[in-house]
């Protein structure tokens, strides 16, 4: 009988601990408190995490170009050049290239 009572009390302790863990985790995930879990249990796990990951991922791609701007590479002459400077040089050359192509097309009309 004593052993049976011991088992029962152990089971009660485990159950109490599990409920406590559940309440604490519910309290940290949403501010609703202990009465919230029963009704939205099916919608809670799947829907809320997905938007947070997508909103976090988008800034990651827009933030990506920022670090290279501060990053510098040293050339043989000992002068440093940034990624932004090289990008600007490429952009200017592309623009001149397009301008010349447009002039060639214009001259071909004569």
């Amino acid at each position, binding site marked *: 009988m004593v052993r049976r009572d011991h088992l029962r009390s152990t089971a009660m302790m485990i159950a109490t601990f599990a409920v406590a863990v559940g309440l604490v985790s519910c309290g940290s995930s949403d501010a609703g408190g202990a009465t919230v879990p029963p009704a939205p249990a099916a919608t809670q796990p799947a829907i809320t995490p997905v938007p947070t990951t997508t909103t976090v991922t988008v800034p990651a791609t827009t933030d990506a170009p920022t670090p290279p701007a501060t990053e510098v590479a040293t050339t043989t002459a000992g002068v440093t050049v940034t990624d932004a400077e090289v990008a600007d040089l490429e952009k200017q*050359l592309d623009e*001149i290239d397009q301008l*010349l192509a447009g002039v060639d097309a214009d001259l071909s009309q004569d």
Partner: protein
Amino acid sequence: MTTPRRSIKSTIMLGAVVLAAGAALVVPSAASAASNSGELPARLQRACLRIPNLETRTDKVIARLDGDASTKGSLLWLQAHIDDATAKGRTQLATVLTNRLAVRTQTLQVLMQRQTRLTKLADLCRAHGVDV
């Protein structure tokens, strides 16, 4: 008992998602930083090596636009054609050629500015040790 288990499960899932998002934030920036470190001088050299051909093309077009009346496509050549069309009463052709002359005059101005810019860019490349 089902609610706490689900809560624990959802908490674990949420934690995994947050960890994955964190890894997604960290890994690409580290990878791009690693790739850019060796790529930048090569990109600079490649861009600089485009300058001589662009200078040649620009000089050639400027010389053509700025040529005399016998140089096909020059401003003076176009003006001669406008005068001819006007004299013959071909007003529509004269208008088309006049509009073309206006555009081409502005183009010549822009090309002269770009020619100066190309010279400066070539100097910049030489300053960075790229032989242009």
